[in-house]
């Protein structure tokens, strides 16, 4: 089967399992983001795919071939490191041509491929520059071009954009995604930035404590998080306690939410509601009543913090639909049942 199969991979450092029995199938040409907080095992997993760490257990299968016993240099992959790891003593062109030189490609072949890659990363004519003379974004692109020089089967990136400033990072995310689409190469990116994952990935894999918590397309992860950890990690969310009262209705913070059903046999659960789904209106009626405790007006969006008996609910609106609610005002909070995701206990 074409693609990458990660079969029950475990990596232990002493007694600590950095990666704990991870199972993942990456179809050919997919862009995968491994997402999670630091120490969740995402980098270790990537390094095992690259062959830079040896798994304690399990196998890595690429296009039907078990590559677990192969050393890194025989795996035919390209990798971009967090530090970029450009060779400081070589020029831009020599950095990109390094893999070709190792393979014994002729000078003309090397030059042709370098020119091709330089135009791919919009740095035509930079071949003779020393890498020290490049800007952060340019180095980033050179590192990508160097990793792609041999048209590898797998393209791995370890927090590739973390050294760039926010604006450039956003632009590079788009560029990287477009590049991957054009080349159709199976790509795995490690990141802790959920926005980056949402921008680029076909498949987002959220990891925590060495395990995969959820693997799904980005919008599904956002809309239907598997548990409270995922819901909280991907974007901003309101995690609210829901209860079934004596009359059988589901209530949140003491107010019944008609249309919201709990799984059978469960009386208590956590509910995730995205801030943009929270409606603010006048108090009373079926709405949850609260008091505005803080307003963060960012110009493009307005975040309103509503205090309901000690629990804070965040509502995000655009200025166009904004209700004029100053700090201290009483408001009614409506949670559309369709937007409420009941999470596992």
């Amino acid at each position: 089967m074409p693609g990458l199969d990660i079969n029950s991979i475990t990596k232990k450092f002493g007694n600590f399992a950095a990666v704990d029995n991870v199972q993942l199938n990456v179809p050919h040409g997919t862009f995968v983001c491994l997402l999670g907080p630091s120490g969740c095992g995402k980098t270790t997993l990537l390094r095992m795919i690259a062959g830079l760490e040896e798994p304690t257990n399990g196998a890595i299968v690429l296009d039907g071939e078990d590559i677990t016993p192969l050393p890194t240099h025989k795996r035919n992959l390209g990798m971009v490191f967090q530090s970029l790891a450009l060779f400081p003593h070589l020029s831009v062109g020599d950095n990109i041509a390094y893999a070709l030189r190792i393979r014994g490609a002729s000078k003309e072949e090397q030059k042709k491929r370098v020119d091709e890659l330089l135009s791919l990363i919009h740095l035509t004519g930079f071949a003779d520059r020393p890498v020290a003379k490049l800007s952060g974004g340019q180095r980033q692109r050179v590192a990508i071009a160097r990793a792609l020089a041999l048209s590898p089967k797998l393209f791995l990136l370890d927090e590739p954009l973390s050294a760039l400033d926010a604006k450039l990072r956003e632009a590079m995310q788009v560029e990287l995604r477009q590049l991957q689409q054009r080349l159709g190469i199976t790509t795995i990116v490690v990141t802790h930035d959920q926005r980056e994952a949402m921008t680029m990935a076909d498949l987002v894999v959220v990891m925590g404590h060495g395990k995969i918590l959820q693997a799904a397309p980005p919008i599904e992860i956002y809309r239907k998080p598997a548990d409270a950890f995922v819901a909280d990690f991907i974007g901003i969310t309101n995690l609210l306690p829901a209860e079934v009262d004596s009359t059988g209705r589901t209530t949140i913070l003491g107010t019944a939410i008609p249309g919201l059903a709990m799984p059978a046999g469960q009386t208590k659960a956590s509910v995730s509601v995205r801030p943009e789904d929270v409606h603010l209106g006048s108090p009373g009626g079926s709405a949850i009543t609260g008091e505005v405790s803080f307003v963060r007006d960012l110009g493009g969006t307005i975040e309103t913090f509503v205090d309901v008996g000690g629990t804070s609910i965040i509502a995000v609106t655009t200025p166009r639909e904004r209700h004029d609610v100053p700090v201290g005002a009483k408001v009614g909070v409506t949670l559309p049942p369709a937007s409420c995701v009941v999470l596992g206990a």
Partner: protein
Amino acid sequence: MRREAPKSVADYTPLFFPALMLIVFFVVPFSTMIAVSFFKRNPSGFYTPDFVFDNYARFLSVFFGGVLGFSLMLAVLVAVCCVCIAFPFTYLLTRRPRRVQTLWLVGLLSVLSLSEVIIGFAWSTLFSRTAGITNLFVAIGLMDKPVALLPTFGAVLTGMVYQALPYTILVLYPALVRLDPTLLEAARTLGASPIRAFFNVVAPALRNTIVATLIMVFVFALGSYLLPQILGRPQHWTLSVLITDQAIYQSNMPFAAAMAVFLVLISLALVGLTLLVGRRENAL
């Protein structure tokens, strides 16, 4: 941190003490030596102030030229051997856990506490026929009978490399510890075997460090005068041995001074040349 250029004389005060030390213990004695090298030797006494080139002229003979050549060759060889051994060793050491590194470094530092005399006599015992390592080789069946491995050139070289190796490692260690380990990993993901990656990436990235270390060991080895006498034959004696011989046993201070000045000049010229070559390659 921002540094301001010193403005008043008072700002230079911290420099007074080292400057004084340098003048009293280096500039004055060295100037004296240069002066003495032009003095005339007095066979019955010591020397008389004069300005003659006799001492330098006498040096320009085949014999002294040969000794100078041998000294420089020996120092270069010691430097190259030390770096060739120390560089891979230190590199592998920096990849070990911190505790292992500390143990090795402490061990190396303790070697530094040995004096040249002790090192010399320890090796002369090790290389001797009666109690040396060849007895061990005989015991495990590698050799038929024990032989003396000294006095030979190999013995001199071994002793001097042994003496200089801890310095070499301690100089290389900081640079290698700071080396980004992902450089090597990047080379491996690009298809280079670990050994190839080491020579392709790690060694060139640290070229300046390697050159600086070579120069340091070279200068260090140039001054050695005990080990060649203990472990070598007279033809393995370095210029430093001859200088000592002239100064102490022949009481020919002007000639000894001339040789010392000559040695300093030649070494400086070699170091300068190395740096110049390094700079030119960097500019490319």
